[in-house]
């Protein structure tokens, strides 16, 4: 994530100046305690953290820490671990993102100068191809000589190879960057066929020269016809390589391996390139510092353990955010326990500190993944502030015992909490006055028990950090009120004809109330209500959420129906699942939602044997029961789309363009839709009336029983014309 964007959002002055863009933006740099990603040439992606040498007391927690559940946590013991070896990261602080690091043998990450790529520039293999076969013969001779020397002295051997093999490749290291660049320009027709990884090529060939190169490459004189794969082509033994590892640099090892490979010179140009790449990836390990963004983070977590992330591929995450219309300033409700909280963390970044994200977690305590996932995003304070974690129990909990209290609590304004519930957390918080003077017993403790100045300092800093956390953390009751305010209590979506354990009576009441309100709204709408609507928001504004995203390991149908009352009408919802089948049920339940019809209303018209009633089957979760006759179908959502995506990456190199050999088979399934207005989105006309009308106008084909694939509303296309003013 762009740290600059984050900082500008905290600084309005900066912001204004940046919109005039007078000066080039400096590259974003790594700050203390920033989490970073290291991308390797072999597609490994490793998380790390830039931890300074001298840790600041108290920052571990408060640096990432806390509003509504601790985000961050203490600095890790191993800020960076590569190949089971830990590396210090304090030297990375201040480096610009995008810098390439060389993983040194001495436990250090060495930053390389700008222009270096993940694979070292190396023209070892270009030499072999300069004059085709002639050069190859030379190399063979060299190799034979080297073989004789091999057992005597590895280092010497190595140097010989370099001298013999490479006319101007002194060490293939950073020293002679310029020279190599020139080289490439001179020999522009030799494309650098480094690897099947797109990142790898650093060619500076122009488009005109590459076309000639491709024609050359087709007529490469060498091929594999004489290749004998008997595992004896490499003359350097395992122990030799180990010795080299301790004594010399990675580039020398690669050179030695190449010169001691009997088959290298007989390989085609492309397979030589592949060979070099493989050896470089093993012995000259490099990585690039990459910002932790929703995309890179999801990709890294997915590549490490896709199951842990419920198979959520990075492009699917992007699609979820787009489909849910997530943008700055919104109220977003996210239940994403199945995907380690990555969706809510990504929403925060997408919204950049404007608005509120309510992350729903299962259980009594904020789960650990929250710290890990959200902590890695390098939030600014604004961003941390907008993410609030609320228990799913606030939505689904059986609040029957204290429901009355609850409702009075929510309906009353925030200041007057209900008599029954005293918000101790809030009360304590309001007692704290900022610089937090010492209380007498603390003062006593410090003077009596803490001996050294250092200990006192550490104690005080930790204490202050604790107070900042306390002061900026919402109490559980405040969070309950926050989510309670999102709910439209008149809306109840029930499955199986029951709300929790409440029974049908309650539902009918709810329905009746809705109908009443409908009239109200229509009346209001026709009068001057809409003028008021532009005015300032009213005090009692209960704000429903603007987007709802669900990716839980719980039943998606129940979860969605429970959370729909929190979503404002005409707002999108997205349900993600690793599996297709649960979403089928959700889809079906949304499409075939039935409510009891108002009593006495055309009950006689509905005949149990009428074929329209075949349609009235409450969906699968609901089972398979035939509904009571007085049920009316209702559209609660529209624009339902059940999708998954197919995602393929390509190797694009001149003459060697093809899809990558392996690709992801599936990135998870998404059910997206738009909630309709619960009052007027209903199908208010009775099915029989509709039928009669259809018969009269002949407008529509008869509904086929059991056909559930019909989407949306409206009559099938016949002719389109649009008259628009």
């Amino acid at each position, binding site marked *: 994530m762009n740290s600059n964007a984050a900082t500008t959002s905290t600084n309005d002055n900066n912001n204004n100046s940046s919109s005039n863009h007078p000066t*080039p933006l400096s590259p974003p740099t790594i700050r203390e305690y920033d989490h970073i990603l290291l991308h390797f040439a072999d597609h490994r992606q490793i998380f790390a953290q830039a931890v300074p040498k001298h840790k600041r007391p108290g920052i571990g927690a408060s640096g990432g820490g806390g509003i509504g559940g601790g985000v961050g946590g203490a600095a890790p013991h191993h800020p960076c671990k590569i190949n089971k070896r830990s590396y210090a990261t304090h030297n990375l602080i201040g480096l610009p993102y995008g810098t390439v690091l060389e993983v040194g043998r001495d436990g250090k990450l060495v930053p390389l100068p700008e222009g270096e790529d993940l694979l070292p520039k190396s023209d070892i293999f270009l030499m072999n191809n300069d004059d085709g076969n002639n050069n190859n013969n030379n190399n063979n001779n060299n190799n034979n000589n080297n073989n004789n020397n091999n057992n005597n002295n590895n280092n010497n051997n190595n140097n010989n190879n370099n001298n013999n093999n490479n006319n101007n490749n002194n060490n293939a290291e950073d020293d002679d960057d310029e020279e190599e660049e020139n080289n490439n320009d001179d020999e522009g027709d030799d494309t650098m066929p480094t690897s099947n990884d797109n990142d790898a090529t650093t060619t500076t060939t122009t488009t005109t020269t590459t076309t000639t190169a491709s024609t050359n490459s087709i007529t490469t004189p060498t091929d594999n016809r004489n290749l004998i794969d008997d595992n004896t082509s490499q003359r350097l033994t395992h122990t030799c390589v180990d010795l080299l590892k301790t004594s010399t640099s990675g580039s020398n090892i690669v050179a030695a391996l190449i010169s001691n490979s009997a088959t290298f010179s007989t390989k085609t140009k492309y397979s030589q390139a592949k060979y070099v790449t493989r050896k470089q990836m093993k012995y000259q390990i490099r990585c690039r510092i990459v910002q932790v963004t929703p995309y890179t983070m999801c990709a890294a977590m997915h590549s490490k353990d896709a199951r842990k992330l419920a198979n959520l591929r990075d492009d699917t995450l992007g699609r979820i955010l787009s489909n849910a219309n997530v943008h700055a300033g919104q109220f977003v409700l996210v239940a994403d326990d199945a995907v380690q909280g990555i969706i809510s963390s990504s929403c925060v970044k997408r919204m950049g500190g404007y608005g509120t994200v309510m992350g729903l977690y299962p259980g009594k305590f904020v789960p650990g993944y929250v710290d890990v996932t959200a902590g890695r995003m390098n939030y600014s304070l604004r961003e941390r502030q907008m993410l609030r974690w609320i228990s799913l129990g606030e939505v689904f909990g059986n609040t029957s015992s204290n429901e009355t209290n609850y409702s009075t609590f929510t309906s009353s304004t925030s200041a007057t909490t209900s008599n029954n519930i005293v918000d101790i957390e809030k009360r304590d918080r309001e007692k704290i006055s900022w610089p937090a003077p010492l209380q007498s017993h603390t003062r006593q403790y410090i003077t009596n028990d803490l001996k050294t100045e250092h200990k006192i300092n550490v104690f005080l800093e930790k204490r202050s950090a604790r107070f900042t956390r306390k002061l900026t953390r919402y109490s559980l009751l405040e969070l309950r009120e926050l989510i309670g305010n999102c709910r439209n209590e008149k809306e109840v979506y029930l499955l199986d004809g029951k709300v929790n354990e409440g029974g049908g009576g309650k539902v009918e009441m709810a329905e009746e109330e809705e109908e009443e309100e409908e009239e109200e709204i229509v009346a209001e709408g026709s009068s001057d209500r809409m003028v008021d609507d532009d005015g300032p928001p009213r005090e009692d504004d209960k704000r429903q959420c603007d987007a709802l995203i669900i990716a839980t390991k719980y039943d998606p149908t129940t979860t969605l129906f429970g959370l729909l009352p929190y979503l404002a009408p005409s707002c999108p919802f997205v349900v993600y699942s690793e599996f297709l089948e649960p979403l089928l049920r959700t889809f079906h339940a949304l499409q075939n939602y039935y409510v009891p019809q108002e009593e006495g209303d055309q009950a006689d018209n509905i005949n149990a044997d009428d074929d329209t009633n075949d349609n009235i089957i409450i969906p699968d979760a609901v089972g398979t029961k035939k509904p009571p006759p007085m049920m009316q179908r209702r559209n609660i959502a529209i624009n339902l789309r059940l999708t998954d995506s197919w995602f393929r990456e390509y190797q694009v190199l001149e003459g060697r363009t093809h899809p990558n050999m392996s690709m992801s088979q599936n990135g998870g399934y998404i059910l997206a839709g738009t909630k309709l207005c619960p009052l007027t989105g209903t199908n208010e006309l009775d099915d029989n009336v509709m039928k009669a009308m259809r018969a009269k106008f002949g407008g529509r084909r008869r509904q086929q029983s059991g056909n559930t694939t019909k989407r949306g509303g409206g009559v099938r296309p016949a002719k389109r014309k649009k008259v628009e003013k």
Partner: protein
Amino acid sequence: MDFGRPMIQTRGIVAKSNIRLVDETHLGDDPLDIQVCRAANEAAKNLLLGNDSTSSSSSLELVDCSLYNEQHLPPARRLIQPDDLVVVFESFNDLNFVYATPNAIFSNRNGHFHHNDFIGKPYGCKIRSKNNEGLGFLYLLRPTPELWARSLPHRTQIVHELDASMIVHYLNLCPDMIVCESGTGSGAMSHAILRSIAPHGKLHTYEFNKMRVEKARKEFEGHGLKHLVEVHHRDVCGKKSLLEAKKKRDSDEKSEEANDETYAASTETSARSDDSDSNNLDTDNNNDNDDDDGMGGFQIGQGVAHAIFLDLPEPWLAIPHAAHTIRPNGNICSYSPCMEQTQRTCAALRQYGFHSVRTVEARLMEYFVDEVEFEAPPTDLPVILTEETASMEKERCTNGGVLPKTDEQNNEEEEEVAVANDHATKKRKVSNKMLCARPFPQMRGHTAFLTFATAGNALRPDPNNQI
């Protein structure tokens, strides 16, 4: 659209917390109290500046919780008002849009719908037609970039939803960024970008077709997004100036003059191309202030764009300019339907210092949900010709095709009636139904190859000065 509206500020918990920098003697002169204040200041810095707390002392003025108000959009308008953009959802495949205008009528195959009926209704409601006794209906939805992309008038091929979501995600577009887009086309992608960079970002979008520029400007203004976007009438590839330069170079070579002073030649070229452009454009469009001067490039300065999106027929021509305009470590995306374009683009990207070049392609697969009943295979046997059946057949023929009913069959029929009436059996029958996903028979087979890359950290010179 919603995201274009100004934010509301509220005093959140942080702003109320009173955390700020305090004077070291705030609590008194006791050394311990001074230490307490110092620790409090340190903690305040850590909290309010986070990882930036080690940065320069100029940011110390930011250590005041009252600066950290919570910002959010006002609640979305529930009711449709005059001049609002409303997405008209006719059916799954037919979306349309209207600007709610009093006394206007929207007509489609389902009937006539009066805008007066729309105004004052909540978004997400259902409207019945005025004619046909209300048989036809449609839904009115609040516009989102996705719905807009499906309903907008196509001026060009648009970037579809899936690609748009990936581009926004991979370019890591966030609020308050500066983004460049070329070309504007129908504006579908522009809306998706604008959504991500609101409320204080800026989208510079470039289009070389004059008519599309004007239509896009009008659209953005109508959607309340004018403050977020600047529509430039310009060809970022600068093909005109490239052609001019080439022509000039050729003529120069022919006459074999001015070879020594290349710089003078190049400035002369650009000057001349300007002249010729203004001449050309005078004939094309009249009284226009922001003429395409024929020079390529984004012309907003060096290293300022956080991200660049290219949807051009020849993106490689724009990449030198993009390398100049993009900020260090910024992301770029090129959208090309053809592999040949992609190849040349990748080569150009690498040439101009971009790294992490990645070409991907994605397709959307959709599913119907069917409730299917799978019955057990039928157990009926074919009738084998025996003496008995033969005689029955004979009888049937003489009877005029009607088979006389046996007692058994009569009984069975009665049973069938009984079964049909039995609710329980029906239930059992129903219970064989299961929900099945049926993939759409057709899908969009190809839209484009998306090439993503990240700019290097070195700033690049303006290629316009090097022609």
